[in-house]
């Protein structure tokens, strides 16, 4: 390509100032050489000028941008707010994205948990606390909340950081509910127990400042604590399991006197199995209570122990103060009687008042003395129980028998058994049923003295064919549970339940099915009945039918005793062609069966060949069947397609909706 060929392009570029310096000089030198191109150059210049002058007038006017903006604003109104926009804006934030992902993960985990049915551990624990609170409530309602607090802040409290007496008191209140918790949960209880002791001490102190001191005091034995002028009633309960009650009581007495105490009361009871159970109440000096309990424990196996302290200081000193006042009052009344000489009625009044005051004084003195005695001695209640308290005293052997009899004559046996009744054989229930088809069955329950039972059962068994006989023996303990070497065993009355049924109702021992093909069906069926009677059997049922193709069927059901069964089978041979012989035998486990006499059922179908071509075969019938079957097959597939569509449609709809929403969301984000 030469410059001359591309002259148009060079000329245009030259006019538009888009030529490089090299191209510019090349063009100029060519224009000097080529007159034709020089002419084109001139024309192009003029063309350019026309375009610049005329075409430029068509360009957009100055207000064009404003119009565009206004039009744009008009057609796309600024959306203010808008939930979707808010969410989209929110999702641009990195933190919001992370939070959303976390929320989705959490939701998935929760769903998984729900699906697998796994309960999370922490929530269970919380439930427990709530439960404990709930139980503590009836006892000490206002303290339930602090109880939990006390549990969680136990370390703080132990360090003595509780800074107000009110808080200390609240914590003390919580002890009661705390002990409830202790019973229920060991792990919490372990944490709680030492603190409960500390708090019990804290109860006696006015402020939490002393609380810290008390922590130290709690380490020391209770005897040395500053409770000397306090009136404390101590009592204890011990439950022991011991070898012998009579050996233990003197030992307790000896321990009591060793510890400056005495046995207050003793009582004992003898159980049905000869074991002793009793209570001993011992009074000992409070200082020696712990040592005494230690000794008592050595006597047997400790089952339970409780220690309690009842503080009566306030009541005691109240009463004491009132006593002093009453004494002063008494003295003044006496003085009044001595000095004043007034009217007799006034004197009498004073006397009366004096009597009342004296009575009060005595009552209060009695009260103080009672408290003194209570304080002076601690009460120990020892519950004693000998070992093997639960051993049974005797055994009772209960025997229960069940018997099923079959006989042609139910009523006779029923009456025979009823005739057996005597003082040692008592019939508790007898029932004879006859249903609307005339079948008879009977049911009897008999109670027999143990020594008579075997003979009577043998007698009843001889009356009919025994199908089932079961004996069940049960040993029942009396006065306890478990085993005992010394307990006696007694035989109880024997209970016998008998059911009597007619033989036809009995299930056959063996069942045989066979077919005989012959030309004369009716005749052969009659012959069969004769055969049955010959073999001591009975005809149970028989039927005769003829089908549209001229085939005849006779169904005969026979029952013969097992011993005659082979003979019957042989005699069937001459009747016709014996086909499809099948034999079922039901093995009844656990039943005693008289095999020779057990019934054997034989069900025989005697049939003839009939017409060769039936209406069910042939070209037309085949065609009809084929069409019907294919129609059914088509209907079936249509139904299956319907089911498939019904199954898939919701998924397709859901997926399409999801896709649409996702597209919307992506678009909104852009």
């Amino acid at each position, binding site marked *: 390509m030469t410059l001359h060929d591309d002259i148009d392009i060079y000329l245009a570029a030259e006019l538009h100032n888009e030529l490089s310096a090299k191209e510019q000089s090349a063009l100029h030198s060519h224009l000097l050489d080529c007159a034709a191109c020089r002419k084109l150059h001139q024309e192009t210049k003029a063309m350019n000028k026309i375009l610049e002058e005329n075409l430029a007038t*068509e360009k957009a006017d100055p207000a064009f941008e404003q119009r565009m903006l206004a039009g744009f604003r008009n057609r796309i109104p600024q959306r203010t707010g808008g939930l979707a926009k808010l969410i989209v804006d929110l999702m641009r934030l990195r933190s919001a994205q992370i939070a959303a992902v976390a929320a989705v993960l959490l939701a998935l985990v929760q769903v998984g948990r729900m699906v697998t049915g796994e309960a999370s551990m922490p929530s269970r624990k919380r439930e427990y606390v709530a439960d404990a609170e709930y139980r503590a409530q009836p006892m000490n309602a206002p303290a339930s909340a602090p109880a939990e607090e006390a549990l969680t802040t136990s370390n703080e409290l132990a360090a003595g950081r509780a800074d107000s007496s009110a808080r200390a008191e609240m914590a003390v209140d919580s002890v009661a509910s705390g002990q409830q918790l202790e019973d229920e949960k060991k792990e919490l209880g372990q944490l709680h127990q030492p603190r409960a002791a500390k708090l019990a001490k804290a109860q006696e102190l006015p402020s939490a400042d002393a609380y810290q001191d008390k922590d130290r005091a709690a380490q020391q034995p209770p005897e040395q604590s500053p409770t000397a002028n306090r009136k404390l009633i101590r009592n204890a309960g011990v439950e022991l399991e011991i070898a012998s009650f009579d050996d233990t009581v003197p030992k307790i007495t000896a321990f009591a006197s060793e510890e400056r105490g005495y046995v207050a009361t003793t009582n004992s009871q003898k159980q049905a199995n000869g074991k002793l159970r009793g209570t001993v109440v011992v009074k000992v000096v409070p200082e020696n209570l712990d040592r005494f309990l230690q000794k008592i424990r050595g006597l047997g196996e400790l089952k339970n122990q409780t220690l309690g302290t009842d503080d009566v200081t306030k009541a005691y000193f109240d009463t004491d103060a009132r006593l002093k006042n009453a004494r002063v009052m008494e003295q003044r009344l006496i003085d009044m009687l001595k000095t004043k000489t007034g009217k007799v009625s006034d004197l009498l009044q004073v006397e009366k008042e004096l009597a009342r005051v004296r009575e009060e004084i005595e009552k209060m003195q009695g009260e103080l003395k009672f408290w003194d005695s209570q304080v002076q001695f601690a009460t120990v209640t020892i519950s004693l129980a000998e070992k093997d308290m639960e051993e049974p005293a005797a055994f009772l052997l209960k025997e229960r028998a069940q018997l099923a009899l079959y006989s042609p004559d139910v009523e006779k046996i029923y009456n025979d058994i009823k005739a057996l009744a005597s003082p040692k054989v008592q019939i508790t229930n007898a029932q004879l049923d006859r249903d609307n088809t005339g079948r008879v069955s009977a049911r009897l329950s008999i109670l027999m003295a143990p020594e008579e039972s075997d003979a009577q059962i043998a007698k009843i068994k001889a009356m009919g064919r025994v199908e089932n006989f079961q004996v069940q023996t049960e040993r029942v303990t009396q006065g306890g549970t478990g085993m005992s070497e010394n307990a006696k065993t007694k035989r109880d009355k024997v209970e016998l339940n008998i059911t009597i049924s007619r033989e036809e109702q009995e299930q056959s021992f063996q069942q045989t099915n066979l077919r005989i093909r012959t030309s004369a069906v009716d005749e052969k069926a009659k012959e069969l009945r004769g055969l049955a009677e010959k073999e001591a059997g009975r005809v149970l049922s028989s039927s005769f039918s003829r089908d549209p193709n001229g085939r005849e069927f006779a169904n005969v059901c026979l029952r013969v005793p097992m011993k005659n069964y082979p003979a019957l089978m042989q005699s069937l041979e001459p009747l016709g062609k014996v086909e499809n012989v099948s034999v079922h035998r039901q093995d009844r486990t656990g039943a005693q069966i008289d095999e020779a006499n057990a019934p054997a059922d034989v069900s025989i179908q005697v049939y003839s060949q009939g017409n060769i071509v039936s209406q069910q075969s042939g070209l037309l019938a085949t065609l009809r069947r084929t069409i019907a079957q294919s129609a059914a097959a088509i209907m079936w597939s249509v139904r299956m397609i319907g089911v498939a569509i019904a199954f898939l449609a919701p998924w397709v709809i859901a997926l399409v909706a999801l896709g649409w929403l996702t597209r919307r969301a992506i678009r909104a984000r*852009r």
Partner: protein
Amino acid sequence: MMDANEREVYRAAIHGDRDAFEMIIRTHSRQLFAIAYGILQNREEAEDAVQDALVKAWKSRWRVRHPEKFPAWLCMIARHRARDVFRRRRVPETLEGHALSCPTISHTDATDPNALDRQLHSALATLPELHRSALTLRYFEELDYASIEKLLGLSNGALRGILGRALAAMRKQLRPALASLE
């Protein structure tokens, strides 16, 4: 290349910043008008086409992957829009278009400015639309070749060819008028 600031404006507009988009309307709508006019040769229609193109661009702004290609994409929408308008118009105006395509340029009218104008337009109408758009971009907005190439998605050689051929064609058609002018 494009400076970072401009690029940032395009990016913001793609992400739905209205202010940035309005900024782009201010700076680019004239070029879009030039392109649309090049195709339609009718000011009102071209203006409507630009307006439609802007609205369409805002609605589908998320389709743009690279912010630097935003102006070219905008021009593409404007061209499509203008072409749609043109196609819809062509059927009723076939007769008129026929008249335009066979201009009768009389020598006597050559000196008349209005007659020159008409001749110019009918000459323009015979050019392919890309040639017309390139011309309008050049003569309306006086853009340099690099900018036009970017907006129309052309290479330097192609644009030179287009403008050269367009000018030559115009020159041939308007030769009598040119002669009279000289």
